[in-house]
């Protein structure tokens, strides 16, 4: 069956769900909204898996190389000849992989929410928004055209805004939603300008054409873009950096990461879907899309590497100090995405080109499963105990065995303990780093240790440690909530064994990355070290952590305050932008521009007040003026102006 027959349905079904529930949700589907939404998504999930099967195993490979297939393409907005925004579906290993991930995780979340969001006032609206998000994300994934990706990029942004602000009457949620949208919008500005530059030089917006025109052997476009520079930097670097800024914003990379932790104000399943598995990795996906172009410009790749590495490390450290379990997970997400990004970047230092790409996307793949599992687990816990604070938890393993088990699996996976999924992907990243740049490798290694530590800190203080003061035990939640946990746990175990490298590679042919036991010793050791440290500190209730915290005092506080990033941004926005620019602008407008217009009016009336003496009322002065007028006219026109 031809892709074009059904591929469009994959994104459009969730959209249909959105429209349906958005318009008639309140009245018609007040109760059944969840079922409807889930049903729509279920169909498109099946279609997605079918597509993946078709692509990877049936007709994707042409003489051993996975070819990109443009399944659909419609001109949406024609700017000028050859320059148009197209809407379509591009199938290549990366996009198909993403297709699977997005639909699968989204389905899980839909199912989970059936239980989690039960009885919510705006139940239908919730599912409508989920549908909107899924539609946008799928559209983003399938983009054939850089402007299409930008369009859906904005759409996922707004759906995330809507979902973060779902509990709209909580000021915190509203603030978080605004923060998320504005920070990413700021990043998107870079993306937009980058697009403008690329489009101008390559003369197209279509991915394939653009890549082929720029990377083509001794292409004139490339010559122009490297030849001409603004403030000493070649245009190409500008363009790629700007585009990357867009990606960094969405993927919450340092220093634009500040919005993600706050975004945890949204419903937990949403965090699982948007802020763990799918949207936040859009940045990685974007860079992967344009990877051939990025490979040309080493300087930008180095930038990406360091941004990724620093984010991975800082986020991991901060995660150790957070007490809100969702925030811990958020920081771990940042850290994991950091991994993916520097994996994409490091080839700049070596020639391990394809491995970087593959490893990064592989980690993206596995991470999607175990991270969404973690979030859903956390969701279950919160649903059970009605708080996010670690302090109020503990000893929950008795009450919620399934959650406990799945959560443990996920923790092991993310900590990189074989044979779970996380282990394989992380190994590949480490190998790439090792081959390219040792420094990055060591950072990554340490970070993985820290990761293990904070994950198990989380695990122990939820399920062991003191027994929680929580009283009313209404069970672990119904099947809707358990099922996704189990499914995802299974996934977290098995996906590692998928021979990912054969399917997804920069050159389309697949890549052999051998994981040698000798190499794996260090990471695993680090992970175990982290786990055991966490065991010592958090398995039983004790005052070790406080001691430690007080021991390192200032540093601890700095980390706890997330290195004062929020304060910095607050300073910039409030002090500089508002008081520095907006206030003066408003003042200028009110007093100078508008004032001038009013002054004009007053001046006129003022003059008329001044000259009223002319009309003195005495007839003799009138006749005098009369006579004077004549004399003046005569004098002027006889002597001066002849």
């Amino acid at each position: 069956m031809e892709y074009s027959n059904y591929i469009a349905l994959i994104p459009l079904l969730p959209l249909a769900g959105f429209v349906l529930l958005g318009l008639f949700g309140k009245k018609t589907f007040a109760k059944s909204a969840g079922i409807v939404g889930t049903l729509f998504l279920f169909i498109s999930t099946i279609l997605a898996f079918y597509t993946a099967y078709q692509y990877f195993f049936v007709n994707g490979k042409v003489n051993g190389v996975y070819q990109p297939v443009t399944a659909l393409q419609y001109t949406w907005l024609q700017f000028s000849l050859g320059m148009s925004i197209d809407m379509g579906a591009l199938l290549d290993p990366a996009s198909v992989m993403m297709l699977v991930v997005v639909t699968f995780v989204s389905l899980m979340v839909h199912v989970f929410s059936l239980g989690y969001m039960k009885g919510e006032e705006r139940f239908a609206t919730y599912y409508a928004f989920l549908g909107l998000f899924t539609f946008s994300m799928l559209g983003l994934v399938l983009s054939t055209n850089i402007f299409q990706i930008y369009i859906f990029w904005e759409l996922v942004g707004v759906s995330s805004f809507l979902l973060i602000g779902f509990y709209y009457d909580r000021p915190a949620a509203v603030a978080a939603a605004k923060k998320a949208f504005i920070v990413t919008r700021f990043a998107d500005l870079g993306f937009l300008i980058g697009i403008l530059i690329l489009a101008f030089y390559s003369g197209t917006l279509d991915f394939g054409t653009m890549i082929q025109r720029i990377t083509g052997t001794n292409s004139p476009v490339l010559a122009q873009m490297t030849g001409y520079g603004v403030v000493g930097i070649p245009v190409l670097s500008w363009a790629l950096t700007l585009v990357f800024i867009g990606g960094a914003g969405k993927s919450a990379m340092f220093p634009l990461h500040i919005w993600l932790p706050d975004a945890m104000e949204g419903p937990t399943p949403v965090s699982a879907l948007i802020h763990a598995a799918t949207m936040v990795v859009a940045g990685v996906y974007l860079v992967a899309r344009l990877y051939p172009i990025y490979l040309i410009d080493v300087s930008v790749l180095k930038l990406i590497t360091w941004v990724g590495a620093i984010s991975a490390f800082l986020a991991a450290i901060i995660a150790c100090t957070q007490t809100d379990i969702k925030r811990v997970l958020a920081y771990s997400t940042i850290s994991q995405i950091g991994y993916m990004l520097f994996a994409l970047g490091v080839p700049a230092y070596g020639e391990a080109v394809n491995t970087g790409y593959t490893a990064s996307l592989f980690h993206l793949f596995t991470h999607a499963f175990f991270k969404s599992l973690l979030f859903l687990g956390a969701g279950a816990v919160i649903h059970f105990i009605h708080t996010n604070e670690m302090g109020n938890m503990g000893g929950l393993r008795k009450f919620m065995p399934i959650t406990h088990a799945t959560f443990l699996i996920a923790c092991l996976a993310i900590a990189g303990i074989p044979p779970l999924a996380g282990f394989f992907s992380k190994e590949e990243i480490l190998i790439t780093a090792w081959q390219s740049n040792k420094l990055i490798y060591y950072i990554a290694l340490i970070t993985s240790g820290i990761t293990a530590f904070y994950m198990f800190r989380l695990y122990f203080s939820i399920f062991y440690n003191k027994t929680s003061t929580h009283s009313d035990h209404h069970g672990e939640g119904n099947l809707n909530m358990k099922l996704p946990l189990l499914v995802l746990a299974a996934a977290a175990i098995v996906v590692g064994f998928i021979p990912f490298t054969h399917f997804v590679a920069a050159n389309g042919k697949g890549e052999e990355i051998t994981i040698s036991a000798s190499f794996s010793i260090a990471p695993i050791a680090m992970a175990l070290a982290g786990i055991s440290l966490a065991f010592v500190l958090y398995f039983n209730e004790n005052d070790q952590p406080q001691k430690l915290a007080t021991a390192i005092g200032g540093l601890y506080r700095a980390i706890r305050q997330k290195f004062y990033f929020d304060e910095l941004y607050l300073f910039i926005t409030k002090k500089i932008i508002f008081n520095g620019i907006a206030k003066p602008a408003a003042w200028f407008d009110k007093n100078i521009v508008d004032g001038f217009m009013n002054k004009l009016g007053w001046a006129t009336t003022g003059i008329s007040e001044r000259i009223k003496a002319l009309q003195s009322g005495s007839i003799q002065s009138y006749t005098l003026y009369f006579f004077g007028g004549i004399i003046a006219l005569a004098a002027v026109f006889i002597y001066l102006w002849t």
Partner: protein
Amino acid sequence: MIDFLLLMKQELIITVIIFTLLLLKIGTEMSNTAILNLANGLLLFNLAAGFMGNQAGMLFDGMFFTNPLIVLQKNILSLGTLIVSLQSSSWLKKHEHVPEFYILLLSNLLGMFFMISTGNLLMFYVGLELSSIPLAAMANFDLGKRKSSEAAMKFIVSSAFASGLLLFGISLVYGATGTLTFSELASHITGGPLPVFAFVLLLAGFAFKISVVPFHLWTADVYEGAPVAVTSWLSVISKGSVLFVFVSVLYTVFKPMAGTWYNMLFVLSMLTILIGNLFAIRQNNIKRFLAFSSIAQIGFILVGITGSSQLATASVVYFVLIYVFSNLAAFGVVALVSSVTGREQVSDYKGFYKTNPVLSWVLTIALFSLAGVPPTAGFFGKFFLLMSGAGKGNYVLITVAALNMIISFYYYLRIVKAIFMDANEHPIEHLAIPAYPKLAMFICVAGIIITGLTGYIYDYIHSLSFGL
């Protein structure tokens, strides 16, 4: 003889009417209403007669001549006279000297007719005096009112002075050329200092009548003091007549010194618009306000005159026609209000719309037409005037004039604002509109709407007019 009757038809009719009224005054004791009906009927007849059996020609070897344009101008004036008399009826009813009023009015009109169709400075002078001396008497028509007599005094003194200067100018012209007939003057006049001085004096004479700055100062006081009927007459009819003559004199007699008077008008027009506007902003008495606004209007007309083309003449005549409608519509309302309630302040008109919607709309439309807002005729009139001015390529003048329209817009809207928006605890009570004023207002409003939107009238005028 017969063509004497034909060519001087309108003048003769007016004369007959005057004497009829005189005899009635002496002989019988008719009630005011009867006289009013009779007078209006006769005026209507005069207007109708003006349209039939016209032909061009001259009498008394060039002293008196007429042509379609002149006939048209006279008809415009007769129309104005009719409207004035219609809407002053509510005031005259209570007055004991109705026939006198009409006699003065009509002798005035007669003077204008002669003035318009004169071909000779002597007859021009006589006509001018005939059209201004009775005005002084009319200004004083409310004998008991202090302001009325003050207005009359100011008018007669300044007009006498003006005519003195005019005469001095004429005498100099005579001295320079030795002739008084226009046709010969046109060929004799040269651009030397003496003719220029003489011209300045003549110009002053004209400028006084149409109140161009700085010869305008009498205007506001007389307008304020005189009875509303007289004021409206002053502001529209007498100005209109002098304008017609002014244009023809400039374009025919003073053709040789066109360059000079173009520059003079350039200066005077800007001055007039500016001063008129600046004074109008501040006025509280609505008659006084209309006086200054009319000064500004004259400035715009001067801009048109500078165009000195066929277009210019046509535009001036056309604008006078429109001005008759617009200004008389405004004065109609003012006359009604002041004759019933005696209130003439702008502030009295606050909340006018609540009590008198119809009158408010009439006044508003009139003001819009004066301000030059489409679709009223005033817009077209102003547009054509400025276009003919721009025809000379003097864009400084045009820009100044156009920007001055903002100020004039402001003070016209000030009245509209008072009528529609301002609250007032003692608004003018509801007024019943008698038949004659109602008819007058109807004519005016209809004129305001039709004259602008249909191009025929303008085309007709243009077809009759001539350029420099």
